[in-house]
């Protein structure tokens, strides 16, 4: 199945800082709960620090940092503003499916540049009428905002994604990915241009 792969670019007058929240996945579930039901940084593999919260009841693999029981929530690490490669848990809303997915992410937050890179680690499960193991086998991309020499802000977003569950609907789900990705891109652009706080009732 061919993945959906897109690239978006935007250029506008403003500040790089205006995109800080849009390019911080830790806020996506707050600002776009119709796209992400949950997002958080995961405790690193092998960690047993006091800072981690919500350790899964049946424990975590010391090698991968993933919960042994894949239906359980991975342990959470404290939120921060920038980070070197760290696993991120996301619960992605896609039609009536929920994809509980793990990405490897890194985030740079500097005055003239904000960047987020992500790549697929493993999809724990797809929550549908019946839970299915896995669900995404490719999800990679980036979002980068930079200040151009003329003072404008340039935003570049890319995403390549492929779904593997539910098996009976993979063709339709992967077809709709060609709709979902542009929708996500628009959310990032709107979040940067309008700020946030408009995801719930006005």
């Amino acid at each position: 199945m061919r993945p959906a792969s897109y690239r978006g670019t935007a250029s506008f007058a403003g500040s790089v800082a205006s995109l800080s929240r849009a390019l911080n996945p830790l806020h996506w579930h707050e600002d776009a709960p119709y796209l992400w039901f949950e997002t958080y940084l995961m405790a690193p593999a092998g960690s047993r620090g006091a800072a981690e919260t919500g350790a899964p009841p049946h424990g975590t693999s010391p090698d991968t940092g993933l919960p042994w029981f894949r239906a359980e929530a991975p342990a959470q690490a404290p939120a921060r503003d920038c980070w070197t490669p760290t696993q991120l848990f996301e619960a992605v809303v896609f039609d009536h499916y929920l994809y509980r997915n793990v990405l490897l992410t890194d985030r740079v937050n500097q005055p003239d540049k904000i960047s987020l890179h992500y790549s697929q680690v493993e999809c724990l499960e797809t929550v549908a009428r019946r839970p299915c193991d896995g669900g995404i086998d490719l999800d990679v991309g980036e979002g980068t905002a930079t200040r151009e020499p003329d003072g404008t802000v340039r935003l570049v977003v890319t995403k390549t994604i492929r779904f593997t569950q539910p098996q009976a609907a993979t063709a339709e789900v992967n077809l709709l990915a060609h709709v979902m990705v542009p929708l996500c891109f628009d959310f990032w652009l709107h979040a940067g241009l309008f700020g946030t706080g408009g995801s719930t009732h006005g």
Partner: protein
Amino acid sequence: MKRVSDWTMEGGGGRTSRVDRATAHRWNRALLSIYYYGRRHQAPLSRHPPPAQVLPLEAAIQVVVGSRALGVLRLALADLCRTRAAQPSTRIEVLMRELVAAYGRLVGAPGWAAPDIVETFERIFRDDATPDPEEAYQQAIRRMKELESGTVLQLISFTVQTAS
């Protein structure tokens, strides 16, 4: 064992969504349907029948109107402006005015009467008889920014292309 399907609005900690899962899925499906409608004539969507998940456009618009969620309304309205530029029809015009009216009620822009808000979006398609879809989209966003904050947005360009 707690499953994500059991989580609603727990509050605190910033881990969980501020809407329940059923609402999140409903809004997601409505937005996907609106975005699908605007792209159904483009490859690869044009090569396949509509997915069963896609709602009729009128039903999707009603979900968005009923959401009273500003972020959802902005996304839907701006994309429908794209669609109207690409596929002009009376049907789209009527639905766009419904969205604009819902958006205007939510924003409540000071000094803007409801008919004026509708008019400012209609002008996108009156000032330019055949607007480019992406230009129509950018015009919609500029108007929203002006209505909400009174500032002029200099959105110079925005393009999305398939990379595959």
